[in-house]
C-alpha cells in the first residue's frame, strides 16, 4: 500500500515536471554589434522570439572585445522589452565574428543556460555560425525562417522561394533557427525602457573548449564606403542589371538612388561583369530585400533574382524587352530604354523631403 502511494506521487511529480519543462520557453539570441551598437538586423531575431511565445525570456549573446563591446551591451540592455538578459563574452578570440570560436561559445552558453530556442538572423553571420553550433549540439536547425507557427513549427522558402515548406521540429532542446530579417520587422526603438532594462553579465570563458579555435584567422574586410542606406533594411531600393553595360553607367543608378534616398542593388550579372561589388547583389544567394519600393532597371527577372525581391511592397520595372519575366512581378512596368527613362526620372522626381 505504502509502495503504491509513493510510486503514484513520484509519477505525478514527473508528469508535472515534464509538462512544465515542455511549456517553458526561453530564447538565446545570437547578436551582432558594430561601433558600440547592436546591429538593427539582430533585433529581428528578438522580434521572432516574441512571436514564438508570449512568455519567452530572451537572453542576448554578444561577443567581442573592449569598450565597443561593453557599449553595445549597455545599449542592448534597454533596446527591446523582451530582452531580460545580456550575456557578454569578452575576449580577443571574438575580435572578429569567426565561426569556430562562436560555435564553441554557443555550445558553452547553451549547456549552461538550457534554452529551448536559439535564434540568429539569417545574414552572413547567422548563416556561417548557426549550423556549426547546431552540429556541436547535435540538433537539426531550421534556417531562413519566414514565418513562425508555434514553438516548433516554421515556414521556410525552398526552390528559390518558388515553394514554401512548413516544417515541424521534433527533436530535443534547443530548437535552433535563423530568421529572415525582412519577415520579422522591428518597430522603431522608443527610447529607454521604464523597467530599467536587462541585466548584463559576463560569460565565464574559462571552460571554453580551445580545440579548433586559432585554426582560422581574420585578415581583412574589404567594403565600399557609402552614404547609401543599408540594402537589407532600406525603404527604397534601386537596382541595375547587365543592361547598364558598364560601371560608369551604373552611376546613373546611384544618382537615382541618391535622389530617392534609396539603397543601390544589383543583379548577379551586374556583379559578375564587375559593375558593382558583391555586397549589392540581390537574389537567392545574395541579399533578400523587401522594401516599400523596388525599382529594377535593365533587369530581366531571372528566377534567382526574383527570389531576393519579390516580397517588396511595390515593384517597378523598366526594360526594353516587353517579354522580360520581370514584368510578371512588377506592379508598374515601363517598356522603354533605361538610358532615357532614368534621366527623365531624375529630372521629374520630386526632391526627397
Amino acid at each position: 500500500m505504502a509502495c503504491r502511494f509513493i510510486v503514484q506521487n513520484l509519477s505525478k511529480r514527473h508528469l508535472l515536471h515534464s509538462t512544465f519543462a515542455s511549456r517553458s520557453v526561453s530564447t538565446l539570441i545570437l547578436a551582432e554589434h558594430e561601433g558600440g551598437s547592436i546591429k538593427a538586423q539582430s533585433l529581428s531575431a528578438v522580434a521572432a522570439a516574441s512571436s514564438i511565445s508570449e512568455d519567452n525570456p530572451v537572453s542576448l549573446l554578444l561577443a567581442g572585445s573592449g569598450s565597443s563591446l561593453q557599449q553595445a551591451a549597455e545599449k542592448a540592455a534597454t533596446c527591446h522589452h523582451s530582452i531580460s538578459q545580456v550575456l557578454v563574452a569578452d575576449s580577443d578570440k571574438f575580435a572578429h565574428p569567426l565561426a569556430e570560436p562562436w560555435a564553441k561559445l554557443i555550445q558553452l552558453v547553451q549547456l549552461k543556460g538550457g534554452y529551448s530556442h536559439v535564434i540568429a538572423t539569417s545574414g552572413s553571420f547567422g548563416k556561417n555560425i548557426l549550423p556549426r553550433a547546431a552540429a556541436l549540439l547535435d540538433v537539426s536547425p531550421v534556417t531562413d525562417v519566414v514565418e513562425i507557427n508555434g514553438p516548433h513549427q516554421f515556414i521556410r522558402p525552398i526552390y528559390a522561394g518558388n515553394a514554401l515548406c512548413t516544417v515541424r521540429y521534433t527533436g530535443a532542446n534547443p530548437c535552433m533557427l535563423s530568421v529572415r530579417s525582412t519577415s520579422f520587422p522591428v518597430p522603431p526603438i522608443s527610447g529607454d525602457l521604464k523597467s530599467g532594462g536587462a541585466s548584463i553579465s559576463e560569460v565565464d570563458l574559462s571552460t571554453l573548449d580551445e580545440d579548433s579555435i586559432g585554426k582560422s584567422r581574420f585578415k581583412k574586410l574589404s567594403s565600399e564606403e557609402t552614404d547609401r542606406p543599408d540594402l537589407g533594411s532600406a525603404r527604397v531600393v534601386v537596382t541595375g542589371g547587365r543592361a547598364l553595360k558598364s560601371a560608369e553607367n551604373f552611376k546613373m543608378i546611384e544618382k537615382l538612388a541618391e535622389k530617392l534616398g534609396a539603397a543601390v542593388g544589383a543583379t548577379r550579372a551586374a556583379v559578375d561583369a564587375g559593375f558593382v561589388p558583391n555586397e549589392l547583389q540581390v537574389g537567392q544567394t545574395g541579399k533578400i530585400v523587401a522594401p516599400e519600393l523596388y525599382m529594377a532597371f535593365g533587369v530581366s527577372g531571372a528566377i534567382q533574382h526574383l527570389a531576393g525581391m519579390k516580397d517588396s511592397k511595390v515593384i517597378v520595372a523598366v526594360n526594353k524587352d516587353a517579354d522580360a519575366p520581370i514584368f510578371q512581378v512588377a506592379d508598374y512596368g515601363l517598356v522603354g530604354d533605361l538610358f532615357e527613362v532614368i534621366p527623365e526620372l531624375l529630372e521629374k522626381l520630386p526632391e526627397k523631403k
Partner: protein
Amino acid sequence: MVAVKRVVDYAVKIRVKPDKSGVETQNVKMSMNPFCEIALEEALKIKESGLAKEVVAVSMGPSNCVDTLRTGLAMGADRAIHVEASRDLVPLTVAKLLKKLVEIENPGLLILGKQAIDDDCNQTGQMIAGLLGWPQGTFASKVVLDKEKQVATVDREVDGGLETLCLDLPAVITTDLRLNQPRYATLPNIMKAKSKPIKKFTLEELNVEIKSDLEVVQVTEPPKRKAGVILSSVDELIDKLKNEAHVI
C-alpha cells in the same frame, strides 16, 4: 574530397504537388547542383596546379546519384563514392556520413557547394566542419592554397563586402557563385568516366545515427502577387507612385 548533390535543374520552373506533399520531381530535368559543380571545378583546378593528388566526388541518396557522380568523373574527378540512402537525409545526417568518409579517406581539403538550390539550406559544410573540428571558409569567392605552410587563404562574400580569412589545413570550404566557371565534360572524358571506380557504402556499413528531428508538414505555393500594369510614360509612373502607391 567534394560532396555533390543531384537536384532539379536550376532553369526548371518547379510545380508544387496538388497534395502539398512536396515539389514535383518526376519527369523533371535533374542536374548537379550548380554550387557543387563550382566546388568540383575548384578541386580539379587545385589538383591541376599540383597541390593535390586526387579528387574524390561523393554523393548520397538513391541509385540515380550515380548519374551525378558520373558527371563529376567526366569533369575530371578520379574516383567517386556513393552512399546509398533511399530516403531524404537532413543536413546533419549528411554531415555525420561525410565525417565517416573523411575518417576513411583522409582528405586534406573538403569542398562543398554553399547551398543546394532545392532546399536552400546552406548548412552541411558548416556542420561537417564543426563535427571534424576543422576551420571553415564559407561562401568562398577565391581560394589560394599554400602547400608549404599548409594554409588556405579564402576570400568570402559576406554582407559587408569581401572578408579574407586564413585557414589551417585540413579545412572545409563552401563555394559561392563567383569562385570559378565550371568546365563542361568533353566527350572523351565522358567515355573515360565510365571506367572510373564508384565505391558504394550503405548506411548500415557507415554506422551513423540517422537524424530525423525535422518533419515536413506541407509544401505550398507562395502567395501570388496581384497582376501589375504596363504604363506608357515616366509622368504616369511618377503619378502612380506618388498618388496611388504612396511610396514617394
